[in-house]
């Protein structure tokens, strides 16, 4: 259910607060070079079915401090490989936030989720517009405001990540 670059529509996968990069992918596997070989182990302990069942455009929804811990980029790289449409969380850990945009995955802050986690439930269908910062929960028919993505990070999403963007810029001098 992927839409254009500035919006996404997909089902919610519900996670709690303080999901670490160790939860996303354990350090045990990190000598593996190919992301496709790492992907089956994503969320191995929390949601072992995730890799099998996730569909392109699906949205990860979590509480505070998503992606805390190690700087391992394998974590968001697997989510990109599985074509996760966006990650919505009450807040993000800093390095994860950078890594996500660097790889072209929108990390959307929705602070209200900290207090009201039930605004989005497992399986709800969400439509998110990155540009105007709106989130529609189509399952509950409620509209919310989320933190707008700053224009310079929107550029990352439009280019498909930091490296394609750098290459464009280097080309144009």
């Amino acid at each position, binding site marked *: 259910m992927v839409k254009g670059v500035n919006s996404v529509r997909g089902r919610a996968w519900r996670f709690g607060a303080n999901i670490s990069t160790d939860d996303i992918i354990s350090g045990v596997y990190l000598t593996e070079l190919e992301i496709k070989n790492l992907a089956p182990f994503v969320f191995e302990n929390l949601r072992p079915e995730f890799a099998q069942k996730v569909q392109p455009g699906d949205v990860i929804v979590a509480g505070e*401090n998503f992606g805390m811990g190690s700087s391992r980029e394998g974590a968001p790289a697997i989510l990109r490989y599985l074509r996760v449409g966006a990650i919505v969380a009450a807040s993000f850990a800093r390095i994860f936030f950078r890594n996500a945009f660097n790889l072209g995955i929108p990390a959307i802050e929705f602070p209200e989720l900290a207090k009201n986690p039930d605004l989005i439930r497992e399986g709800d269908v969400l439509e998110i517009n990155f540009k105007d910062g709106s989130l529609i929960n189509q399952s509950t028919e409620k509209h919310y405001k989320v933190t707008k993505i700053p224009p310079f990070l929107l550029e990352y999403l439009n280019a498909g990540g930091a490296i394609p963007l750098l290459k464009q810029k280097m080309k144009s001098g």
Partner: protein
Amino acid sequence: MPNYTMAEKILINHIDAKDVEPGEIVDATIDIAMSHEMMGTRVLPHFDEIGTSKVWDPNRVVMILDHWTPAPTVEAATIHQRVRKFVRDHKIQNFYDVGRGICHQVLVEEGHVRPGEILVGTDSHTTTAGAFGTLATGIGATDMAIVLTTGRLWLRVPDTIRIEITGKLPPKVMGKDIILHILSQLGVDGATFQAIEYHGDALTHISLDAWMTLTNMAVEVGAMTALIPPDQRVKEYIQNRTPQPFTPVYPDKDARYLQKYEFDVTNLAPQVAKPSLPSNAVPVTEVEGTPVDQAILGSCTNGRLEDLRVAAHLMAGKQVADSVRFIVNPASRAIYHSALEEGIIGSLVKAGATIGPATCGACFGGHCGLLASNEVCISTTNRNFPGRMGSPDAKIYLASPATVAASALAGKIADPRNGG
């Protein structure tokens, strides 16, 4: 009157502007870029994709192999091989191969950390260097590929939290206990995207080793970076390790802080962080008696000379409990050597320790002592997330070297203030 924090001042010195505001995005020049095995796994593919195949400044790049060292698998050996090839091809001037030590320690020992500079590393605990007045922060693989190509990186100007640490630590209570206590008060996202500045008279009573423990675990509070204003000890330490000049940066008197905290450590008890968050710290007395299967002394948090010395002192003439595997990984070869000369290694071995190489080892679930299902470990490392050290069903408690040593002797979590 200027009113900047340390982080703001260092950033101003690295951008084309004379002023910064917290929240603003700046494009900063980078002084030192450090990577480890992540270079061989995730950075190189990005670097190759960019395709300029030229490193911006081989003198400013530091490569250190420390995570899977010595290589426990063919895959790890292959990653090391790729890194060595990169080092040769690009004439990287600063390369530290297997056995030299954990990156955050080696960076400091080899004079790559200097006050007032910006250091980025593909490792979240890069914040450690902030003990020397360096704006040091962890980045991912894509960021590193960009830094290697351009020597620049966008950074968000952080708000700064000022943490005043006052008083004098009681005996057998260490820097680790201070940071575990701070974490329990601020939480694992207490400083997300922010800078921490440590101040206070307690700092003058503790070692630089302990300072590094405070800045190391700032990332567990979510901080971008953590800084301590350099004192005379720091200046001497750096001068003895590098001929390069440096200019320490200090905060302005009226610097604007987002928040101020004060912690008096005069009556602080040894702290233990219960599974599975580093912020779950409680006084050791609350978990005393919990049986442990393994005790680990090491890592970039607590594998330094003072840490080994404290443990050896507590263990002298005693024996590790039969039910415990006690594993020690000095944070660097230099520390290993000093500990040998001081007789520390001998005391630890006599007490029943297994001394491993200067490596990250089990800290991140790599090798050298992983945990089986339902096992309990007490460790001087920095993270106790489920699965961090092997089986997701293992339980990890975090504590100071003194508490870990006392617990290894007792076979259960023990208060280092009793006996020893």
